[in-house]
């Protein structure tokens, strides 16, 4: 069994408190096959991985060549996204999964479940302030 472990990162809140939040450093492969590293919030509540339109451009994808899909959250209204199949590297694992690129500029980068949480068991360890991606043994 392989386990890839990432530390939580500290962030200051509006009232000055420090919160540690779960992040993972994930590499996304561009159209030119080069890898681009981004820290993502590890978000078990997100159906799909989310980035921004400008990140789509950075990776070399044509935004609107993706599948139009609307994304909702607990606070905001709907966000227009275009979903592409993108190759990711998490730990030493390379795999392709759906990634939604939002037209809205200020969305956080989220690592969502589609194509990720079915591959790894994801364990949030708030006490140790780490997130573990556990890759079960194959059959």
């Amino acid at each position, binding site marked *: *069994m*392989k386990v*890839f472990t990432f*530390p939580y990162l500290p*962030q200051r*809140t*509006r009232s000055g408190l420090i919160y540690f939040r779960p992040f993972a*450093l994930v590499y996304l492969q*561009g159209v030119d096959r080069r890898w681009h590293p981004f820290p993502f919030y590890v978000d078990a509540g997100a159906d799909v991985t989310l980035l921004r339109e400008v990140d789509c451009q950075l990776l070399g994808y044509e935004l609107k060549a993706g599948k139009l899909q609307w994304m909702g959250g607990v606070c905001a209204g709907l966000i227009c996204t275009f979903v592409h199949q993108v190759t990711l590297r998490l*730990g030493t694992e390379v795999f392709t999964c759906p990634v939604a690129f939002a037209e809205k500029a200020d969305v956080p980068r989220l690592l969502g479940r589609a194509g990720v949480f079915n591959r790894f068991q994801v364990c949030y360890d708030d006490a140790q302030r780490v997130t573990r991606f556990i890759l079960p043994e194959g059959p």
Partner: protein
Amino acid sequence: MEREEIFFDIPQIPLEEQEKYAGMDVAIVDGKVVAVGRNSIEALRKAREIFPERDVEEIIIHYIPKPDADFLVL
């Protein structure tokens, strides 16, 4: 069952730098913020101007959120 755990570091941005760069994308090389941009493309371009010899794989682009909430529900 044998368990192999690999720890991957993510560069921590000091809280004072988070305040300074809130709402921006920063480019990180060797664990340090080397460039700042309004978006990932701008941050990466500026970092590559400083470190043209570095592959993009060595340049981490990290968005610094504005501290505009106490709790995040993503």
